[in-house]
């Protein structure tokens, strides 16, 4: 019976685009929420795990994220990004909030001490488009000078402000600002202007 119910719900969303799934969540369809979870929870988990370094906390962030998606789906605006990007931004925001609840010193030390986690194996079911997206972003990051890439990563994945990065790395604040600006501009050229 559970399977039948699931199939009914899945059939209801079958053929609908991902954006339509978000619209259905906004209308209160549980099956659509499950569909979005199947598509994007893995990404949300990866982001939260990278930021927090704790599986338990990262799972809680994923829960918080999808509870928020259920409640705020009506606020989603396609013109501001894909559903995947919207959900990823929400997961990151939740993870950063949690990170900042720790003491600043602990946060900074943990971030700096953390080695980038080893990549898990991509799931066998991973879509080709997802693989291409990852390759493209990684290539864009790889061509940045090391100090620019590290500074951008400390901001994005470490949740550190520019001042915190300056203090933690011993760099002048102006240097940190310049690295973030230059790094992000190069990423914009690679990701937004170059053909996929």
């Amino acid at each position, binding site marked *: 019976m559970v399977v*039948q119910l699931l199939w009914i*719900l899945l059939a*209801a969303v079958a053929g609908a685009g991902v954006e339509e799934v978000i619209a259905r969540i906004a209308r209160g369809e549980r099956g659509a929420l499950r569909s979005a979870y199947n598509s994007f929870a893995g*990404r949300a988990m990866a982001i939260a795990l990278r930021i927090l370094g704790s599986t338990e906390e990262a799972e809680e962030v994923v829960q918080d994220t999808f509870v928020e998606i259920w409640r705020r789906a009506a606020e989603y605006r396609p013109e501001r990004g894909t559903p995947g990007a919207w959900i990823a931004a929400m997961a990151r925001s939740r993870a950063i909030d949690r990170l900042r609840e720790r003491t600043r010193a602990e946060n900074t030390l943990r971030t700096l001490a953390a080695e980038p986690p080893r990549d898990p194996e991509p799931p066998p079911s991973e879509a080709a488009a997802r693989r291409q997206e990852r390759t493209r*972003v990684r290539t864009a990051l790889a061509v940045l000078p090391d100090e620019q890439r590290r500074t951008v990563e400390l*901001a994005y994945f470490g949740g550190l*402000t520019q001042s915190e990065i300056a203090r933690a790395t011993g760099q002048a604040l102006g240097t940190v600002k310049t690295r973030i*600006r230059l790094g992000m501009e190069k990423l914009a050229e690679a990701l937004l202007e170059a053909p996929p």
Partner: protein
Amino acid sequence: MTCSEFKELTSALALDALDPDDRTMARAHLAESITHEGCPEALARAEAVARLLSGALIDTHLPERVWRRIETRLFDRASRRRWATAGWAVAAAACVTAVILAGRGTRLRSERDAARAQASAAQVRAGSSDDLARQCAAQLESARKTSGLAREAIALLQQPGSRVVPFAPQGGFGGAALAVVSPDRRRAILLSAALSPAPARDYQLWVIPPGRGAAPVPAGLVEAAEGVALGDFQAGALARGALALAVSAEPKGGSPTGSPTQVVLVAALGG
């Protein structure tokens, strides 16, 4: 802050890496009613890059317990809260939830039984509206079998804050109807056993918007599914808000004048 200064900060702002004072100043500049020199566009560009960065990661497998916890947080609590309100609306909700729970097998059987017990208690308290609750329950159960719209009504009813409003008959009309209304009143679905369209007659939905003397807005036709009539009030008609919902009897195809011909049911939404 000048536009040039703002644009120097957009990357850090998009990464949420500005210190609090700088962030406040940057946001204040963006909100200024001046002719910006590309400030919103520069921020949008930086935000687009920031959104893409997570794409560098490989998706991480999640155990099924995470999904179960999400379900528990969202739906079990909503069900319990719904049972706490009295009256026929609770009984109807209990019925619908029981329909869902019935498909969940042994694991949820005790919860379903508890829900039914609570529904029964609510029905006793509801007194004179007991019959209405049973009618609603029967209608929803029947509709569930065949209609996607009924499934949507069920989902809407499970949404926290949704409510059921009864329609009052007008002009001696003998039928009754209910509408499930979303918390923000942007969605409303009508259910009735008394509004089946006939060869020469349709029932039409109307939204009465707020404002003195506001004209009713046509909101679609009632459709029948195995003896149960359902009506999805069109989102466009609800966009301006709704003071009340109504149903009219019309010639086939709907009102020829753009106004209700014979109003048969009205439901006040209040405030």
